[in-house]
């Protein structure tokens, strides 16, 4: 008797629940995913999809990743696919390159890109240039990834941005995600790309959660390498940034909007090959340009954007010189007040925008 009533009760509850739901309609909570989890998801999906993909680096396996980006992967895939390396960047980067040359698809993690300097010869001379030198005989389908640029309080040797250094070299692709969607789409594209791709992440962004659109939840969600995204439409000025500063630019745009200034904020997403066309089209609309980056000013990403704008059709549409907002031209200091003034802040972006607009 009790059993029968139980059998009956469940569907009744479900029906009444349905009825209840119709009366109390709320939008489903948007899926929030941190940048860390987005990269994790992207790698997990690609590891599952193709058994030639594997991850190596310091602490990526049993420690779950120095910044927990590879959390759970070793447990799922084991020693063969998730490999802890000794502290030997030059060695394991070279090993990763060799593995890629011999037909595997390694993801080589640098704990931060500062340590990639130890291995930079392997990234540039062994990975980037080989397809060209071999006239297409030998490809290197490898991903080098890890946190890049300033963190918080880690001082000069641990805070350098390598976007300009890697972006300089033909044969490499260089991507720089800002939000969770970028992170997932770009890591997946990077892994599927048959070329060496450097993915410059940002440690301060790992823990930041973003709304994850439905398409980003697909296992085949890819963001094309080489295409920038207009995060915010505007008419008065084009503001171009990559990585964490994109968020600062959007904040600046919100503040300025109250004063009637509408900024068009472009998220570069890819450093090389750079999507100059999107920037040009925007500048031709807004007539003003400010670039924002965390790296040093000399020979930086902004310098390249300005040079290209000058050389292209958009120059004639500029009503004012293009201006760069960058990290301060100093090795990163430790003390908070000094560090805060060594990275571009929202107020610096706002100031540069107003100056450019002559306001």
């Amino acid at each position: 008797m009790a059993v029968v009533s139980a059998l009956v009760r469940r569907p009744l509850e479900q029906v009444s629940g349905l009825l209840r739901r119709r009366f109390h309609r709320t939008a489903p909570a948007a899926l929030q995913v941190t940048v860390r989890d987005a990269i994790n998801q992207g790698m997990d999906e690609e590891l599952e999809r193709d058994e030639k993909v594997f991850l190596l680096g310091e602490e990526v396996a049993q420690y779950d990743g120095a910044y927990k980006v590879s959390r759970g992967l070793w447990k799922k895939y084991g020693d063969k696919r998730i490999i802890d390396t000794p502290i030997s960047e030059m060695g394991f980067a070279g090993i990763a390159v060799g593995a890629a040359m011999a037909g595997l698809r390694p993801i080589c993690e640098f704990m931060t890109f500062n340590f990639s300097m130890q291995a930079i010869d392997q990234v540039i001379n062994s990975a980037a240039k080989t397809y060209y030198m071999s006239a297409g005989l030998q490809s290197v389908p490898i991903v080098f990834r890890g946190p890049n640029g300033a963190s918080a309080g880690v001082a000069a040797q641990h805070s350098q941005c390598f976007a300009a250094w890697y972006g300089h070299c033909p044969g490499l692709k260089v991507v720089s995600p800002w939000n969770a969607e970028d992170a997932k789409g770009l890591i997946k594209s990077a892994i599927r790309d048959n070329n060496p791709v450097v993915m410059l992440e940002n440690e301060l962004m790992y823990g930041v959660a973003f709304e994850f659109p439905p398409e980003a939840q697909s296992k085949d969600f890819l963001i094309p390498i080489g295409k920038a995204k207009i995060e915010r439409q505007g008419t008065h000025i084009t503001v171009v940034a990559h990585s964490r500063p994109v968020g600062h630019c959007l904040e600046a745009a919100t503040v300025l909007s109250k004063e009637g200034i509408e900024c068009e904020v472009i998220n570069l997403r890819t450093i090389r090959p750079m999507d100059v066309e999107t920037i040009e089209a925007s500048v031709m609309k807004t007539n003003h340009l400010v670039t924002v980056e965390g790296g040093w000013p000399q020979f930086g990403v902004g310098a390249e954007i300005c040079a290209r704008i000058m050389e292209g059709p958009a120059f004639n549409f500029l009503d004012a010189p293009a201006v760069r907002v960058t990290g301060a031209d100093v090795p990163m200091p430790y003390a908070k007040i000094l560090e805060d003034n060594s990275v571009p802040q929202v107020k610096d972006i706002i100031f540069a925008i107003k100056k450019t607009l002559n306001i």
Partner: protein
Amino acid sequence: MRKMLAAAVSRVLPRVAPKPASRMLGAAGTFADNATFDIKPCELYRLEEGPPATAVLTREEGLKYYKTMQMVRRMELKADQLYKQKFIRGFCHLCDGQEACCVGLEAGINPTDHVITSYRAHGLCYTRGVSVRSILTELTGRRGGCVKGKGGSMHMYGKYFYGGNGIVGSQTPIGAGIALACKYKGNSEISLTLYGDGAANQGQVAEAFNMASLWKLPCVFICENNLYGMGTATDRAAASTEYYKRGHFIPGLKVDGMDVLCVREATKFAADHCRSGKGPIVMELQTYRYHGHSMSDPGVSYRTREEVQTMRSKHDPIMLLKDRMLAGKLASADELKDIDADVKKEIEDAAQFATTDQEPPLEEIAHHIYKDNPPFEVRGANPWIKFKSVS
């Protein structure tokens, strides 16, 4: 140096004579099918036993090794000539004198094993299956070159041959990575990773040793010790010149690199070691380059002409093989002369092509930047010069 030379001389002469018991008359009647020769036992490090102290050489093998070594020799000498005639530019590192290394290594492995080396790569490029014609044409920078003139002397690639690497020592971790791929795929293939006595002092070599040993990668690390790292003798660069022991926790073999049979047997032994899952092994090939470090180096400021002459006259790898083949009745002097003539003609033909082939078309300048990419524009020397890049 003198001690090494004296020791080397004393071991060459008795080993030319074959063991009488194993000589068999072949069907032709005049030549033996094979002969057995004593080879210098390898010094062992962390190994209970090493390669055999004798090697069987068949007539067929002998002729093949002889021809191949002559091809490498003549090809390198032709490159020397072409360089002096300014058909070849930039760096040109020749390996004449070291023929027993590339030929012996190839004889000890399968075509589907993997080989990577430094910039002194022409010989290995050939033994790995790239034609002399395409090697010489690459050196002269023409479109018929094995990499279309894009790479040059230091960047030639082939199937299962990963170059040709310009940065000293950089190929060592790469070779370990190739071994990792072999182990990952579970295909019993191995990686031969060559480096020189100079490169042995690179930090990344130690890093590669550590990881290869830790992960038991099927990698044969081969130090081609030709006694000089550019202009610096080994004892001026290395606190320990026992390169076969420099793998520390990795077993090692010291091999007579002027004897193709010694190299072959040692390679087989090393390959077996790796294929059986024991992890990496180090082989030191004691060899000698007749040329200087590169064509820019006459090679006499840091070594005596007498030393070079002595090595040529008493330790030449081709001469050693020839003497053995004659002593073992595996071939006649005339037959070998015929091979010499064939080789000479083949090299001349290749050189003729290499010096007359067209340079690559200018459009080639931007191709092969990326693989599997839709075509895109590449900037030239000024913003108005645009090239199209195709994968």
